[in-house]
């Protein structure tokens, strides 16, 4: 029993990442009608926002500590981050320690900006072009973004630890009398994902802005006829989708050290998630994200991999193929969206 629960929990962190990326993909597809192959790159840029902030906070100056010597007998050079010098070792130290959560604040404006520039500068011109062209140009953009990041940060994964306080493990099963040891940061990540997803849904459900966007997703032309400037709202929506992907990336860094191709790795799977959930269905994307994450986790158990070697690597694709063939619209797809 607790083994099953543990596998479900294990699937939640990857599932959260899939759900967040797929949510953004679906928002963009539903509102703008654009298939964005560069969405994984936004996830990756978010992760590197965290890396960047961490580097900024760790900018240090060197002082020579005469009281200590290194192993050669020379006076020890001590690096002190500027932040610690300004705020004192206690507050400064915790600021450095909390770089990843702080990067959320850092990443939001950056990601919205990146999304805005992307939409106005490039994607806007592709609304009326065939889907193949949209795929191709965003694919090119994804390569470019990935290579730019590689140029500045190198090809190796960069360790970006979570704050010490959130770095340990906790026993989630204590409440129900079971032993389920689980890393704290993954709990944080899941909670964070739920918060963001909830926020997006509330935003779409309870604000007039969200109402217009939902109406636009249902029938763009009619909303345009009402004299509402739907394009501007869609641009903002693109910025929000970019921010969601970026934040998913920021928070994912302690789970998996970011590298330049993480965006592409997640993109392929996120597309599969969107398709399984149903193109244009937001709840479908979220549901499929978590489901596939959990499924992948179950397929990774020793039992599964010894019975069917490698099942963990292909399970998601198998499910996607099965779903597409039996329910072409996906789990919760709307009628008439991208059917042909």
């Amino acid at each position, binding site marked *: 029993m607790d083994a099953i629960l543990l596998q479900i929990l294990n699937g939640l962190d990857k599932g959260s990442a899939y759900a967040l990326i797929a949510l953004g993909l679906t928002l963009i597809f539903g509102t703008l009608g654009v298939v964005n192959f560069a969405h994984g790159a936004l996830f990756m840029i978010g992760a590197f926002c965290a890396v960047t902030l961490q580097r900024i906070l760790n900018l240090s100056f060197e002082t020579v500590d005469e009281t200590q010597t290194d192993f050669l007998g020379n006076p020890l050079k001590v690096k002190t981050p500027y932040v610690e010098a300004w705020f004192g070792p206690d507050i400064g130290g915790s600021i450095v320690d909390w770089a990843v959560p702080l990067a959320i604040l850092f990443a939001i404006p950056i990601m919205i900006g990146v999304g805005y520039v992307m939409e106005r500068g490039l994607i806007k011109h592709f609304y009326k072009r065939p889907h193949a062209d949209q795929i191709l*140009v965003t694919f090119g953009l994804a390569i*470019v973004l990935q290579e730019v990041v590689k140029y500045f940060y190198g090809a190796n994964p960069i360790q970006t630890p979570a704050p010490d306080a959130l770095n340990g493990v906790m026993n989630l099963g204590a409440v129900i009398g079971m032993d389920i040891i689980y890393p704290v940061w993954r709990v944080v990540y899941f909670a964070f994902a739920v918060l963001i997803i909830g926020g997006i849904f509330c935003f779409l459900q309870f604000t007039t802005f969200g109402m217009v966007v939902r109406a636009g997703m249902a029938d763009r032309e009619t909303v345009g006829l009402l004299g509402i400037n739907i394009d501007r709202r869609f641009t903002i929506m693109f910025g929000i989708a970019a921010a969601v992907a970026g934040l998913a990336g920021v928070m994912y860094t302690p789970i998996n050290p970011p590298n330049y191709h993480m965006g592409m790795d997640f993109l*392929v799977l996120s597309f599969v998630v969107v398709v399984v959930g149903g193109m244009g269905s937001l709840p479908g994307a979220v549901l499929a994200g978590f489901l596939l994450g959990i499924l992948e986790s179950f397929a990774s158990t020793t039992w599964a991999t010894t019975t069917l070697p490698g099942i963990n690597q292909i399970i998601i694709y198998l499910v996607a193929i099965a779903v597409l*063939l039996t329910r072409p619209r996906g789990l919760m797809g709307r009628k008439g969206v*991208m059917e042909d």
Partner: protein
Amino acid sequence: MFGLNKKDTSVLIIVAVMVMLAPFLLNPFPSASGLAQFNAGYPDLMQKFVIFGIFAIGFNILFGLTGYLSFGHAAFLGVGSYSCVWMFKLLGYNVLPGILLSIAVSGVFALLIGYVSLRRSGIYFSILTLAFAQMSYALAYSVLSNPKFNLTNGETGLQVYADDPQWFHNPDRLPDLPHLFGLSMRATYKLDLGAWEFQFNAGYYLCAVIMLACFYLAIRIFRSPFGMMLRAVKSNQQRMNYTGLNSRPYTLAAFVISGMYAGLAGGLLSAVDPLAGAERMQWTASGEVVLMTILGGAGTLIGPVLGAGFIKYFENIFSKINDYVLHSWFSFLPDGMEDAVVFLIHPFIGKGWHLTLGILFMLVVIFLPGGLVEGGQRLVNWIRGRKAKSSTAAHETNPAE
């Protein structure tokens, strides 16, 4: 000639002549000169040109004619490579069985994947093919390389070992390398003419002949009623259905043909270098053939070949250029400016080739959807337009004189 009309025949002949004379044409600079690094007339690179040319020609039969954008064609390339190496391991180093098996296996593989994927179209088709290719990659990389059933040899890549059966291999008579009835694929005849050195490589010429055959077949497909049907699928599937035509057999046939082209290309890659790795199946490899086709001009006959050559050539050149070379080029500039120019160009060369490629690709999709071929046509039209203008201008001014 050959059942082609005049224009296609001349295109075929021009391509054939250029491919056959490639060792000369691609080696314009004397080997001792500083420009020799821009030569492309050596076996490794020329083989890549024609092999990826085959890959792109095949991809174009699917994408260029039917408009179905496959993001998983590398799977067939990989399957072809593995099949060919397996023939080396079992039968011996003659390339012929390997090439034949790679075509056959990739054809069957394409039939299976195509049968499933073609039930959907548009973006769904792209994602399905992508999913299949990624699945094949995952299988080849880890699952199919367990000790009990080692089909792909995982990370190391599949290669021929000394204890492989090689039933028909006779080490006394035959070279211990891929060969065609005794003619080693690495056999290279070097011709020194003055300051130039030209290399004629057996592997290249084998691939080149096969590429010409593939090119010829592609022209036939383009000009046949079958090709017209494929273009009709791209143009309007609805009307196709309401004209009593089931489009699926046509698209499936196109998919299998292009999968076999890809398998053949994969087989040839193994034939010139008997090592097959899973990375050939990765989706970046699928993306590369898409880039080649679009860059050259999808739906045109010659475009994919141009695109393949263009990408492989510049990949090679760019990876050779380093800061040192740049400094020597721009040494005529004042020091500060020289450094600035080198600093600006630096991200795009060497390992930055993919960045350049990505930017180039975006520019082509945005401004030149017809690729290099369209670019060439526009250039020709522009020149003609200018000529026409200047001649009419001359006519107009004449009477005044």
